[in-house]
């Protein structure tokens, strides 16, 4: 049983046109840079991408948008991205906007085998259109369905050869949730260690959820809003 693959190209080799893929990350923080680059190289098209954001024009999922590889984005915030805007307005790109907590919890539901969850987010708004509204203890909730994605692609800080993952700081975000939610989960890691090197109490994603893992390279880890203070 070997989950370790050589690199991003091998890891994503069976992602075909029309696939539904989840991509971890919040903004540009914790995104699977290597796999995104490989998807661009593979020129796979008509993808449905579930990711909190859509990258920026020249980085992250923005690179896939530039190559017109994305048919539909399912996100909570698509931010400043001129190419995204152009494709959306021209009708080339379909966008489904869903509340961030709903996005996260629909991943959790998939990873925990729960077909649907109830959340108050979006009650009384256009997000509720066509959805079941149900009252519990006098408060209204929307029923939201678990995601059903062919692939999940996540980025972790450290991983071992059994696919156990540890994330770092706020680059954790959606990564462990999507790792659980994908039918097939690919993890790229900054550091790939032999099995037994990660403390079993510190692992965020158990390897049972991870099917392929590789050590990524040349991480750019671009910063979207560089804010600092004076010493």
């Amino acid at each position, binding site marked *: 049983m070997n989950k370790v693959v050589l690199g991003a190209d091998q890891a994503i080799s069976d992602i075909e046109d029309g696939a539904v893929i989840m991509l971890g990350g*919040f*903004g*540009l*923080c*914790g995104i699977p840079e290597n796999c995104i680059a490989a998807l661009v190289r593979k020129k796979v098209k008509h993808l449905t991408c579930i990711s*909190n954001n859509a990258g920026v024009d020249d980085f992250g999922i923005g690179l896939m948008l530039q190559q017109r590889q994305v048919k539909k984005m399912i*996100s*909570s*915030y*698509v*931010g*400043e991205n001129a190419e995204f*805007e152009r494709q*959306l*307005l021209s009708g080339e790109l379909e*966008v489904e*906007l869903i*509340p*961030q*907590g*709903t*996005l*996260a*919890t629909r*991943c*959790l539901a998939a990873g925990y085998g729960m077909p649907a969850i109830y*959340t*108050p*987010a*979006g*009650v*009384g*708004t*256009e*997000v509720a259109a066509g959805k079941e509204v149900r009252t519990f203890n006098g408060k209204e909730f929307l029923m939201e369905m678990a995601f059903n994605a062919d692939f999940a692609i996540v980025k972790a*800080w450290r991983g071992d050869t059994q696919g156990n993952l540890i*994330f*770092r*700081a*706020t*680059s*954790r*975000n*959606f*990564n*462990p*949730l999507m790792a659980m939610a994908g039918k097939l989960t690919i993890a790229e890691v900054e550091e790939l260690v032999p099995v037994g090197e990660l403390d079993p109490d510190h692992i*965020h994603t158990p390897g049972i959820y991870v099917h392929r893992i590789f050590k990524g390279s040349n991480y750019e*880890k*671009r*910063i*979207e*809003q*560089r*804010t*600092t*203070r*004076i*010493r």
Partner: protein
Amino acid sequence: MGMTKEQIAQRIARELRDGYYVNLGIGIPTLVANYIPSGMSVVLQSENGLLGMGPFPFDGEEDADLINAGKQTITTLPGSVFFDSAMSFGMIRAGKVDLTVLGAMEVSQDGDIANWKIPGKMVKGMGGAMDLVASARNIIVAMMHTNPKGESKLLPACQLPLTGIRCVKRIVSDLAVLDVHDGVFHLLERAPGVSVDYIKERTAGTLVVQGEIPEIIF
């Protein structure tokens, strides 16, 4: 006339209590962090997965893995915790965050809020706003009382697409502090030098004024 953004933040900071866990939205709400009384323990939640948000890093010490919900580089504090987005919105949904402060384009006298979408303009998405407003036990809206044209943003009913319904408890605008309950706005405090009539004229929704309305003192 009216309060500056800093003064709005400063006034909101007076709502903080020792031990509060607080989520501050982008814009004026972020400024509230600058006015946490010293000695008071207030823990800031950032919905991308952090409790205990610290100040911006010193120049050169930015960490790409450490950002807030506004995607700004930040720092941690002693006691900080990282978690995933499901737990983050889980604690929000479960009402564990004591206070949420966020901006608004419109608020209705029923407590509805619109702050994510303007028809005809490019939609960027609601991010975590719909979760926050639907879940928070206590929401304060930080906003300008009127739009640049001078039209009231405190309305009988929101005109813009809603972010959430019946959720806003309190508004701190540049002109006043108001509570929202029983289907009307209640005037509580006036900005320095702003008269009750001036606020009335700029409040499109029903405004209840009871007794003497104190002026905010800084």
